[in-house]
């Protein structure tokens, strides 16, 4: 740790790891490998030991307050599933509580589409989420969409388990 820049990188990595632990397994596909319970209890606020330290309206607050920051889609589809709508209901509730927070909705696709088509598909998914959140009372001006197509996969296998994790939208609350 003699290099302060390296130290900063390590700290960032640690924060990401913490955020990863705090985010809960989505209630819908895909299941967490190995069947580990990601801690879905207390999905509506009572966080185990976190409430005292979390800044309301922060990314950490969002991650802890909603069942998931993401929803998943079927192959080549931008239709929200019942599970996805349930996740978005919770996100909308949080957004309506934290009315000064603007968010970015990322749309992603798996690797099985061609690059440019997937950019369009990711936008279509992000837009579907935006429309749903709007329908739940979130002002459209607070919702920005961005498509990453297949450029930002989270799972790197070429199997359906990986593909299904990559066909997603992610609601991103800005870092404080």
């Amino acid at each position, binding site marked *: 740790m003699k290099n302060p820049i390296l130290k900063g990188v390590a700290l960032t990595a640690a924060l990401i790891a913490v955020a990863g632990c705090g985010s809960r397994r989505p209630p819908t596909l895909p299941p967490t490998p190995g069947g580990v319970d990601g801690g879905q209890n207390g999905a509506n606020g009572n966080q185990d030991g976190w409430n005292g330290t979390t800044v309301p309206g922060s990314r950490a607050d969002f991650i802890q307050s909603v069942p998931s920051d993401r929803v998943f889609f079927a192959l080549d589809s931008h239709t929200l599933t019942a599970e996805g709508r349930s996740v978005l209901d919770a996100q909308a509730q949080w957004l309506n509580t934290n009315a000064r927070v603007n968010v970015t909705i990322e749309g992603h696709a798996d690797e099985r589409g*061609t690059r*440019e088509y997937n950019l*369009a*598909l990711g936008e279509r998914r992000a*837009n579907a989420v935006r429309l749903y959140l709007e329908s739940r009372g979130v002002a459209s001006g607070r919702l920005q969409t*961005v498509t990453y197509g297949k*450029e*930002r996969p989270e799972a790197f296998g070429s199997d359906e388990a990986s593909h299904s994790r990559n066909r997603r939208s992610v609601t991103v609350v800005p870092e404080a």
Partner: protein
Amino acid sequence: MKRTFLTLAAAFLAAQPAFAQTQPPQEPEEFVADVTGAEDSVFRVAVPVFATPQAASTAAGNTTNLAQQIAEVIVTDLRNSRRFQPTGPGGLPAPSFGNVQSPNYGTWQGLGADNLIQGYVQANADGTLTVGCYLFDVDGQSQRARQGFVIQPGEWRRAAHRCADTIYGSLTADSGFFDTRVVYVAESGPPGRRRKQLAIMDYDGANHRFLTQGQWTVLTPRFAPDQRTITFMSYENERPRVYILDMASGRVRPLVEGPYQTFAPRYSPDSRTIVFSMAQNGNTDVYTVPVAGGTPRRLTNAPGIDTGGSFSPDGRQIVFESDRGGSQQIYVMNADGSGQRRISFGGGGAATPEWSPRGDLIAYTQTGSFRIGVMRPDGGGARLLTRDSGEGPTWAPNGRAIMYQRGLGRGQVWYVDVASGATRRVPTPLEGSDPNWSALRPN
């Protein structure tokens, strides 16, 4: 056996009536690479080492070495084109400088050469090089073509490529594709956090350099036909949109202003217009806009994804892909958006259409399999050229070869000979995606 199959397949295709637009053509025929099938049009060429009036050192090395290297590049170019069987420079007698324009035909007849290329490299007092290049008909004992270049020493590979293009153009009915460049996305780093840089290189991988440093993800670069600008998509400031890079100044500017994401840019043949896609509230359509600036013109308005627009070589039509019919398929329209009609009906789906510079074929990526294929502009005659997963075909300027990204997550740059299906990798320092093959370079 393979040849028999090809012949039968060709006869079958010829027997098909012209496709009505509502009638699906047959599934694409499996294409079997058969290099010997093109034997009739393969030219045997001898390429001895170039001569030099006297060994002289230059900024690019000694002229004796350059004379060897230029002959080697010509041999490699001709061999890679699949239309020549070159021999040399190793193993062939080296002509003297005085014999460059008057070969000893008897010697070359004895060696079985039909065609002979001789040339020379000369260092000039002002630091430039003169490269001369001559093509002889050995049996006819006559000169068929010649070409001379005065170049900076560092451009010697270009002189070799242009010499090979001269030979290609003289012996075949086409122009060559050797004095060309490729712009592509150089990739490195772990999946999920790929570093993507614009890079440019000669078609054979030489003279590689990076155009961006990788701070922002970049995608799908395309040369203007005049090669003065490159258009590409960038995530600069996490705001994905299409940019124009001016090659002379290095300046970069957005193609269009506005809140919506733009992507999939391609130039018109006159370099003045760009066809691109814009995603707006979940609906992606194809637009055109003048490169110099102006209001985008919307060409499609179907609900769904219309993207991948590519101009026909006469600039009058645009081929694009759309999922309006339920799956990704290829459509053609007039350049003003009128007359939209579907041309592909394959069950596999088809994407990323690219109109050949010859106008005779449209290259595409078969969805699902990610194989590269070609079809006629009426949708008929579809056949697959590659076996492995890849995407994003881009044409050689003479329409005889297609470069593409081979491999999906970790790609490489390859090209395939359209006639034979033979493939070849373009060496790159990193992994590569989204190649785009330039036109022949302006002089």
